[in-house]
């Protein structure tokens, strides 16, 4: 075994800054060898250490009386939902692997996020996927979309967790670098959870699950670099997934936790054995001796650093109470999985890795991890040049259109608005028989918690164009929209997880976007009392168009958990009966900023974020909750991409209704119909409830107006006939399929 010599070139290649190399030497009191340097390289990578973001993440609200673990303390957030049940949830990105190998990249993303949930003892019961791609007319985009969707489907379908929601969004800024964010949600009986910790000198350490191969080595480091033309040379850094192994690991893990024989357990994701041994040791303030030659290998001749860094999937590190090894081994044997003792817990906080009797690396665990010795940086910020372009925008320079029917047709088939059926039908959305949204469409996914009167209400949201235009306000909107979707489905917002997809943090303009987004998220989460339970930061997302490098639009995806306390109060978005009155709650603004209409139809790329006021938004949501509890409305659907027209259209098509609407003459008609100003909800009310409904609204002082009624005929706005909803629905349903097939 001949080890690679540590030279300045090697240090650079491993992504370690010169000052970081000095710091490592200071910690060890000597030069690190190559294996040790590799360990620091992955553990201090952006992906594992959050070194450029943690300072700002700590400013987010992370406290709440219903939180059972704090943000970043465990693999995922844990929220008390009552009835002795806790909900465990988290969102994570797998952008870089998907850019190179969409199928495996997406598949292992799904695998990784689900492991984060069941390593804590929770059974995953729902998934959401937040996906962003470039121009669909590019062959490459089609290839990426096909691969990502198939990867998510093949992995999740076999693993057996339904997809209950998510987003698919297209913009040229994602041409090279798609965003693939996967969220998993699990439930667990309170008290049956497992912690990612290690303690008790002499307790044995086991590796369980799949064998270790050369896949994914330096994956975490790779995820912390810009995507370039040369990135495809790094394909070995992408892991390969096996959902069948994951299913076995799930069942075995939940079973083994019940034995009570475990001290702790952590899944192996980024940086494999290195990350799990160091994080568990640091958390439990102990050390470990690990014998790498005992690790079951998938291929021969693996170097120590390869075994340490391998990101082979479907593996866990398990620390067992000494004397109870057999109980653990029996469970894994039942599920035909490896379960091999590879080391033991030690007292001194040092990680000692041995290979064939030789000590190959010797480092203090604490110095590797976030919150311990990992570096923390504050990066420079600078207002981007494009903000000046945005400030020049004035709606009065945009002529009012005449062709409303053409615009409506355009929006119905616009891929950011049209049905995502082509994607969704490739996912198993019903396994588990808990998805209450299959037959009852609503703004958020509603998931039955069997044995209780409760349901989980879940949404992922982010309009990155709004964030681009105004990071702070745009991110406030992302949180608000997630909350609004939950409220319109009958739920109460509870907590969030976030996936922060940004460009290169060393670019001050990118970091300006990042800090603005964090400020906005903090404001909104404090207002909605939805603490941040954790999540993931993905920097270095950028596209290279005609040799110009552009970061993707800042995309802080919000994954929100809500609780529906009474299943009888589930709210849906579809119009139910002819003659019901249609109301718009909220205020229409003379605003078309950053709307699909302005951005994609009129091709005006620079405009501010749409009108939004956080206090007003909260008040609107409050009144929606009230009228749902009083059973005064038959449908609720928020106004989002595409504006009021699309909201009405989506409510009408479910059962083939039409509507007659009168526009508000005090503002431009295009703003009324296609503008995306926030804090608006369309509800339908039976004439019998009109009086009580209006009384409550009047009392609330929230602006609202009767804008029309549900009909069995065509869609009429003022006197313009937009055709039947069922005919237009054909185009809405098939827009994406037609491009993809």
């Amino acid at each position, binding site marked *: 075994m001949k080890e690679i010599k540590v030279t300045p070139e090697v240090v650079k290649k491993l992504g370690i800054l010169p000052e970081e190399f000095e710091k490592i030497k200071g910690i060890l009191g000597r030069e690190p060898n190559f294996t040790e340097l590799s360990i620091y390289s992955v553990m201090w990578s952006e992906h594992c250490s959050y070194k450029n973001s943690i300072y700002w993440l700590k400013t987010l609200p992370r406290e709440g009386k219903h939180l059972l673990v704090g943000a970043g303390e465990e693999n995922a957030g844990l929220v008390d939902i009552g009835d002795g049940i806790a909900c465990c949830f988290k969102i994570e990105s797998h952008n870089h692997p998907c850019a190179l190998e969409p199928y495996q990249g997406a598949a292992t993303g799904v695998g990784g996020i689900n492991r984060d949930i069941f390593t804590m003892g929770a059974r995953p019961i729902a998934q959401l996927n937040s996906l962003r791609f470039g121009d669909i007319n590019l062959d490459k985009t089609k290839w990426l979309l096909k691969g990502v969707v198939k990867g998510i489907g093949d992995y999740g379908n076999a693993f057996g967790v339904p997809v209950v929601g998510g987003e698919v969004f297209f913009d040229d800024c994602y041409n090279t670098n798609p965003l693939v964010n996967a969220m998993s949600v699990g439930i667990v009986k309170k008290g049956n959870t497992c912690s990612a910790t290690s303690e008790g000198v002499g307790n044995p350490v086991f590796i369980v699950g799949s064998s270790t191969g050369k896949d994914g080595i330096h994956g975490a480091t790779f995820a912390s670099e810009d995507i370039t033309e040369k990135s495809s040379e790094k394909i070995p850094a992408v892991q390969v997934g096996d959902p069948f192994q994951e299913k076995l690991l799930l069942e075995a893990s939940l079973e083994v936790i019940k034995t009570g024989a475990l001290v702790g357990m952590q899944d192996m994701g980024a940086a494999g054995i290195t990350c799990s041994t160091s994080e568990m040791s640091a958390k439990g303030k102990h050390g470990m001796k690990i014998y790498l030659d005992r690790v079951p290998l998938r291929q021969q001749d693996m170097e120590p650093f390869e075994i340490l860094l391998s990101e082979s999937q479907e593996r866990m590190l398990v620390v067992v109470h000494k004397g109870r090894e057999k109980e653990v081994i029996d469970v894994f044997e039942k599920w035909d999985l490896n379960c091999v003792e590879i080391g033991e817990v030690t007292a001194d906080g040092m990680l000692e890795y041995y290979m064939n009797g030789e000590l190959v690396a010797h480092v203090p665990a604490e110095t590797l991890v976030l919150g311990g010795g990992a570096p923390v940086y504050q990066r420079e910020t600078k207002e981007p040049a494009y903000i000046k372009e945005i400030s020049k925008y004035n709606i009065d320079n945009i002529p009012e259109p005449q062709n409303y029917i053409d615009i409506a047709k355009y929006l119905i088939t616009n891929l950011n608005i049209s049905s995502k059926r082509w994607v969704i039908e490739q996912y198993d959305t019903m396994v*588990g028989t808990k998805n209450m949204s299959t037959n009852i469409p609503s703004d958020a996914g509603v998931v039955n918690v069997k044995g209780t009167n409760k349901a989980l209400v879940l949404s992922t949201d982010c309009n990155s164009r709004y964030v681009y235009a105004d990071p702070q306000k745009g991110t406030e909107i992302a949180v608000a929209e997630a909350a609004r979707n939950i409220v319109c489905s009958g739920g109460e917002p509870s907590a969030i997880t976030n996936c922060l997809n940004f460009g290169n943090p060393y670019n001050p303009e990118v970091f300006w976007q990042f800090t603005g987004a964090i400020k906005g998220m903090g404001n909104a989460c404090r207002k909605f009392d939805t603490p941040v339970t954790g999540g993931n930061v993905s920097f270095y997302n950028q596209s290279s168009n005609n040799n110009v490098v552009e970061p993707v639009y800042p995309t802080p995806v919000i994954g929100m958990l809500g609780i529906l306390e009474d299943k009888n109060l589930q709210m849906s978005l579809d119009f139910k009966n002819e003659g019901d009155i249609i109301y718009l709650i909220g205020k229409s603004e003379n605003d078309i900023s950053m709307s699909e209409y302005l951005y994609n139809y009129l091709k005006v790329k620079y405009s501010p974020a749409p009108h939004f006021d956080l206090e007003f938004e909260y008040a609107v949501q409050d009144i929606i909750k009230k009228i749902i509890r009083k059973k005064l409305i038959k449908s609720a659907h928020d106004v989002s991409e595409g504006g009021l027209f699309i909201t009405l259209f989506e409510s009408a098509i479910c059962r083939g209704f039409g509507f007659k609407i009168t526009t508000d003459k005090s503002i431009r008609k295009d703003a009324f119909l296609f503008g995306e100003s926030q804090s608006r909800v369309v509800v339908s009310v039976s004439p019998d409830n009109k009086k009580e409904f209006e009384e409550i609204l009047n009392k609330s002082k929230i602006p609202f107006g009767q804008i029309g009624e549900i009909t069995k005929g065509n869609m009429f706005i003022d006197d313009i006939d937009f055709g039947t909803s069922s005919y237009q629905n054909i185009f809405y349903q098939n827009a994406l399929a037609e491009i993809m097939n």
Partner: protein
Amino acid sequence: MKFGVVIFPGSNCDHDMIYVLKNIMGQEVVKLWHKDRDLQNCDFIVLPGGFSFGDYLRSGAIARFSPIMEEVIAFANKGGYLMGICNGFQILCEAGLVEGALLHNNNQKFICKNIYMKAQTNNTLVTSLIDKSKALKIPIAHGEGRFYASEDVIKKLNDEDRVLFRYCNKEGDVIDIANPNGSIENIAGICNKRRNVFGMMPHPERASDEVLSNTDGKIIFESILNLVNA
């Protein structure tokens, strides 16, 4: 009745089936682990949906060799009631307990959605109570669900009244456009000659709980229970 639900390591609709049989239909249900050989005196055995052994090779191709399957096959050959849903149907085909095969969907994609299907006969236990004129809304979720068999076999299935269900539209018309996966003659489920082994791709257990707002599948379980009620 006592039901046994076989659990292969990659089964993922086993819990759903047990939930419906136990919590909704109020029956006794036992889990039958694939490595065991004891059928525990069950009256009715179910092979649930999922990906039995990962199904990387061909769905159900490995599951049929499980220790429990030897006993299940013997049970069926003696006339015991056996039903396979989705992956369970694929396993029945691989084990030769029903004719035909389930090929990749004709669009080469996994498909999960509500479809409509119509019972074709009342002359089997599982369809005994179903109104043959009614289109039932039932979910499908499979990548390999395209029923295929030789012309001779199809003729025999028709002649012997062994087609349980065909895909149809909402109005109940059995037409091409209502066929989600390219199955021959829109066939969604069949039984064996002895009429004690039933296979179907759609998932009735996903359409039996009121909280999901669709209980069209419940009639299949009610039909089965009619055996003891009758």
